[in-house]
């Protein structure tokens, strides 16, 4: 065969083997290792730092970085922590790659993130294969941590499921507010549909009636004109309107509904939790509007205040939102479990399963699906979250 061909072959072989040399390192995980006091422990951050949902990912990544900095500076720090961050672009496939990199190459003790459910689920199998826990701050999708009927052993999340908020609001509306007839509007996303389905189910179970089907009450993210859908609703009789979606559309729905003369109570979920809601809806229209959330941003506790101050000092006010608190709690939970277990791998996983955690977003333990059991706050939107109306735990 030609010499030239051999040359090409050899040189390409060289190139590939050189690349291989860069990549060596990693190796089989799964067993974990014991840690001594003062050891350096790496913590991975797998976040959406670019792409569509970069604002969530950045808010969380900042909080993780801050939490680790605060831990390292505290006097009773048992280990020296190091933060390794990777960008997953908000893409599920990239997220798998990022998690693999953190596990194999950086050998992290646990991973915090990603912020979105899809990207989180994409990492659970890889993580479970090598027994490196993934703590997702905000993977709220229903059954996100489940692989069919079994839970992924390494998947944990510290937010409640989408459906849980829907159930809590339905229970609150039916029992505490005494509402009888509900109308439902939902975004055609997994978030909106999950919330709305659960709301309908629980509201009906509590003796209420839902006057429209989800099919007539769906809208797309980015819609701005809801007059058609609201006109149809206004012809019917109802005393509460559940809007399952984010503040961008919800704000406009509230405004247009009030202008049309719909004076029923309007309720929603943590998608309402933004100052933009008041801007879009108009302050005067926010009477009798309530939503569920994990933390009351308007009336912070002392620990929340302290975190908020440190965060704003480091990254500015704009980057702070609910996701930052959740991410902070994720790291602190991981560190607490790490200190208890004194080891990585399966031992750390076991410590997480049994953890009793008291953090910024409430205290909780994990149920058998690795989802926290905690209460939901119902907030009056008019007070901009300064007043908590009730704490609801779904029975």
């Amino acid at each position: 065969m030609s010499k030239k061909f051999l040359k090409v072959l050899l040189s390409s072989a060289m190139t590939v083997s050189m690349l291989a040399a860069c990549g060596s390192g990693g190796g089989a995980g799964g067993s974990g290792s014991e840690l001594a006091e003062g050891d350096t422990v790496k913590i991975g951050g797998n976040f959406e730092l670019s792409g569509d949902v970069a604002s969530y990912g950045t808010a969380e990544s900042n909080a993780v970085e801050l939490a680790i900095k605060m831990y390292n500076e505290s006097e009773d720090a048992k280990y020296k922590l190091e933060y390794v961050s990777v960008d997953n672009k908000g893409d599920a496939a990239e997220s798998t790659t990022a998690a693999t990199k953190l596990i194999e190459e950086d050998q992290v003790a646990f991973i915090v993130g990603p912020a979105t459910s899809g990207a989180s689920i994409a990492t659970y199998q890889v993580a479970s294969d090598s027994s490196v826990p993934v703590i997702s701050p905000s993977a709220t999708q229903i059954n996100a941590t489940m692989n069919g009927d079994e839970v992924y052993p390494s998947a944990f999340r510290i937010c409640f499921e989408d459906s849980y908020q829907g159930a809590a609001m339905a229970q609150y509306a039916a029992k505490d507010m005494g509402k009888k007839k509900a109308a439902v509007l939902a975004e055609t996303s997994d978030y909106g549909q999950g919330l709305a389905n659960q709301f309908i189910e629980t509201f009906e179970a509590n003796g209420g009636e839902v006057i429209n089907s989800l099919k007539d009450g769906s809208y797309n993210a980015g819609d701005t004109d809801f007059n058609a859908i609201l006109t149809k609703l206004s012809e019917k009789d109802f005393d509460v309107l559940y809007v399952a979606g984010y503040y961008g559309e919800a704000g406009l729905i509230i405004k247009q509904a009030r202008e049309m003369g719909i004076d029923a109570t309007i309720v929603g979920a943590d998608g309402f939790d933004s100052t933009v809601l008041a801007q879009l809806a108009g302050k005067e229209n926010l009477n009798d509007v309530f939503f569920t959330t994990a933390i009351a941003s308007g009336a912070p506790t002392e620990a929340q205040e302290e975190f908020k101050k440190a965060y704003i000092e480091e990254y500015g006010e704009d980057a702070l939102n609910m996701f930052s608190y959740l991410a902070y709690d994720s790291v602190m939970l991981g560190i607490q479990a790490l200190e208890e277990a004194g080891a990585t791998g399966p031992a750390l996983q076991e410590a997480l399963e049994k953890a009793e955690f008291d953090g910024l977003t409430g205290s909780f333990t994990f149920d058998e699906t690795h989802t926290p059991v905690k209460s939901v706050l119902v907030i009056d939107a008019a007070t901009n979250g300064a007043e908590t109306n009730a704490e609801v735990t779904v029975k």
Partner: protein
Amino acid sequence: MSKKILSKANLCWMALSVAVYILLSVLINFRIISSYYTITIYNILINIILAVSLNLIIGICGQFSLGHAGFMCIGAYSAGVITKMMPNLGGLFLGVLVGMVISTVAALIVSVPTLRLRGDYLAIATLGFAEIIRIIVMNMKITNGAAGLSGIPKLTTFTLLFICMVISIIIVCNFTRSAPGRACISIREDEIASEAMGINTTKYKVSAFIIGALLASLAGALFACNFYVIKPTQFNFNRSIDILVMVVFGGMGSMTSSVIAAIVIGFLNMILQNFSNLRMIIYGVALVSIMIFKPTGLLGTRELSFEKLLKRKERKS
């Protein structure tokens, strides 16, 4: 006949692919490279199939399609749904077949009316098609809507992926050199002239479009069974653009360049993963400079051809 197939040039190609296969599988199986790099290689192989198949439509046939992600989506979801019911290689095979059947039907429905359009209009029509597929998938029960399918078994192995890639390249290259392929090239060069020469342009455009769609759906199936999770948002406009960039980056009409571009962009993505703020900028600058200094792409329409290399050598000696 057998002599033709076993020509020197073909043997060289065979030797090259076997050598690359052995080299990569040794690297992967003996864990010389970490599984992080292995995923990158998997990604590159899938992207090669996508780039080569889109190059057939754009580079060879001259039809500007922005709907490749739609076909990939069909393949991914067919394989995802079926392998969740039958988590073995038989399931994957069946999933690939079902995906191909649906893709063919979809490609026929789209291409027969839209391939009468030209240039920008075709691009917009195919873009619309891909969005329709995505929205349908987002609203179906069996695909689990916007939440996407999760818990798909990992069935894509390196060997399977490599074989599929080689087969895809062979199909596209052989099509290009066949009579229908030549007809496609003539359509690319001048549609009216080729029509005047008695070429049934619609027929050849549709056949190139369908072959491209089939291969994209194959790539989608392999993609789904490699990453455990698929979501409708993964198959949006950006995915089509990513594939398009590979084709344009390498050079339209050259399969060698599509392969090289897929490899280069794959590694570029991997290296830049740690520089999230800079990544998009570097990516953009690389593309802009290619377009300014070499508008035809890295290789233009040149191909790596063992036949030519061997001939040149013979002439020398």
